[in-house]
């Protein structure tokens, strides 16, 4: 038998046990949330989703260069090339008052002639322009609606969970009532009522989507706060003498808000779709405003001859689909990663 003399240096052990460096971000988020974040950048679906969203962000920022507006002070107005009802095919030349030529056009096409790349829709609205500037509208409405509903939901849900008892009961019954209303119909009616009062713009639809979109956030944050507030560290803070508001904002909310945050980040796609549905039905923005729902609605009268005029519905429709798909792919990936059974597999 050989005797093993411990040498005292642990280099072998150190090699065998891989030391993992814990980064600043991981420390801040905690191992669980960090795993979610890393997972998001490793799942194929979410990479595609990210790529799509990054592409759309780039388009939104570069819109004035991709499709220069006719009037820089009113860029959301889709330029018209005459007033004739019949759509004109892709690549047809721009006859009446063309906007400035975009900088990328000449080097690629070797011509000074600005054309309707994706054709014109009913009323000679330029489809390409509507699709490009519609990205900005989509982000604007999506972000405003999601941010507002998130804040409203978090405040209402926190109040409900924090006070509990009767207050909680009343608030949650109100939430129940709101949830029984069919979302799109309710939003449509409210937006239709608001439009004559505040004029045609993005505002009526945004308000309507906010009014009927906050409930799920309120419910989720309420549940998470209720479970977090029973944890021992909340009790420990109370024993130390920490004020209730500080306990809520420092110890409860940061630990309870993550699932709600995830939900909010995924809702942008849904909101965009609902907004497009409203403006397809002619509610909200004025005629000729660059949003996808409106561009699609120009195709309504040409449904029976879409084999000929397919480009007036395919391009805005495809853009909308890709935009929503980007967010949904991200959402699917996030849901998979959040599933505890998937732990350690990404």
């Amino acid at each position, binding site marked *: 038998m050989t005797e093993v003399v411990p040498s005292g240096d642990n280099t072998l052990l150190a090699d065998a046990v891989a030391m993992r460096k814990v980064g600043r971000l991981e420390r801040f988020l*905690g191992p669980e949330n960090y795993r979610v974040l890393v997972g998001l950048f490793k799942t194929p679906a979410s990479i595609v989703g990210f790529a799509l969203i990054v592409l759309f962000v780039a388009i939104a920022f570069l819109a004035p260069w991709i499709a220069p507006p006719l009037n820089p002070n009113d860029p959301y107005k889709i330029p018209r090339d005459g007033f004739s009802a019949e759509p004109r095919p892709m690549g047809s030349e721009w006859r009446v008052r063309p906007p400035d030529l975009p900088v990328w056009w000449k080097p690629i096409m070797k011509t000074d002639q600005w054309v309707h790349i994706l054709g014109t829709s009913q009323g000679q609205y330029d489809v390409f322009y509507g699709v490009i500037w519609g990205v900005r509208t989509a982000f604007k409405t999506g972000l405003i609606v999601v941010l507002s509903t998130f804040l409203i939901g978090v405040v209402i849900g926190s109040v409900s969970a924090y006070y509990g008892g009767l207050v909680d009961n009343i608030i949650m019954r109100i939430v129940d009532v709101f949830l029984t209303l069919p979302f799109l119909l309710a939003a449509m009616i409210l937006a239709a009522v608001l439009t004559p009062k505040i004029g045609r713009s993005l505002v009526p639809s945004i308000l309507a989507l906010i009014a009927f979109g906050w409930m799920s956030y309120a419910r989720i944050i309420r549940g998470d706060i209720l479970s977090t507030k029973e944890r021992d560290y909340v009790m420990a803070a109370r024993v*130390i003498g920490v004020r209730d508001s500080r306990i809520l904002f420092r*110890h409860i909310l940061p630990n309870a808000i993550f699932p709600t945050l995830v939900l909010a980040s995924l809702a942008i796609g849904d909101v965009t779709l609902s907004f497009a549905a409203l403006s397809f039905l002619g509610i909200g923005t004025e005629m000729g405003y660059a949003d996808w729902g409106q561009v699609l609605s120009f195709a309504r009268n040409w449904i029976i001859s879409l084999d000929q005029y397919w480009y007036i519905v395919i391009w805005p429709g495809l853009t909308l689909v890709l935009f929503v798909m980007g967010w949904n792919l991200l959402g699917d990936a996030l849901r998979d990663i959040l599933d505890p059974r998937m732990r350690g597999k990404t």
Partner: protein
Amino acid sequence: MPTNNNQNGEVLVKVNNLVKYFPVRAGLFQRVVNHVKAVDDVSFFVRKGETLGLVGESGCGKTTVGRTMLRLIEPTSGAVTFEGRDVFSMKPRELKVARRDMQIIFQDPYASLDPRVPIGESVMEGLHIHRIGTPKERMDIMLETLKKVGLETYHSRRYPHEFSGGQRQRIGIARALALRPRFIICDEPVSALDVSIQSQVLNILKDLQAEFGLTYLFIAHNLSVVEHVSNRVAVMYLGKMVEMTSREELFRNPLHPYTQALMSAIPVPNPRLKRQRTILKGDVPSPLNPPKGCRFHPRCPVAIERCAHEEPPFVEVSPDHWAACHLVQ
């Protein structure tokens, strides 16, 4: 007679007839249909500088007693006095001041630290709340307190998930200690830890008690742990106090049949030793509907008829030895 040099010591905390009922609600209108009688008329006291062990099986109300004493749970009735001041009638501001003196260590070290706050800040939070010292001084107190529980300076910036269970429990102790309290409720501080870590934490608690003159209420269900740390021991059963005396007296001469049964359940590391074991029949009754008379009588091996309808009072049967049993009075 118990030979306890603390026997005539000054009383720091006194609990009188503490009652806590949790309402049970049901139905559409959430009407109160019943009460869980978690703590029902419990009285005891803790002397300055001693450790009072509070034992009993799961669900007997030990933890509720501890949390109610700190007003983490509002009591149904009764009184707790800390140095002669009534804790239950304190206004929020007085309570905040009083909490500098009364702290708690929790059972589960994984749940008792906020996962998003570096542990140094957790330990410092109390100092910040009570506006003790400058930020620099607070930092010094925090680092010193961490050192007292065997942690290093560089640990202070780390997050709870980077520590082991024993380390976290020591951080919990440091947090309770940072305000330099005089009374700490230890709510099963070692029952979630490995046996090898238990003694380490218990010894830290003992050292700190000697250094800072702390008084402990040590809640536990493990009798050997209680024997290791306590000067006196109180035994609870189903929301009631059944016996309280010095550690030596309790282990040598338990009076209440429930305590005797507990004692006979302590494992002895000698397989040849033949022991008289008292095996209790049945389960602990529901605190929703506790038995009439003595709460222990349905399981008591020596119950007499009187036990079934008359509740025994908790009285001092011999000097410094309280018990609630008809047979020993």
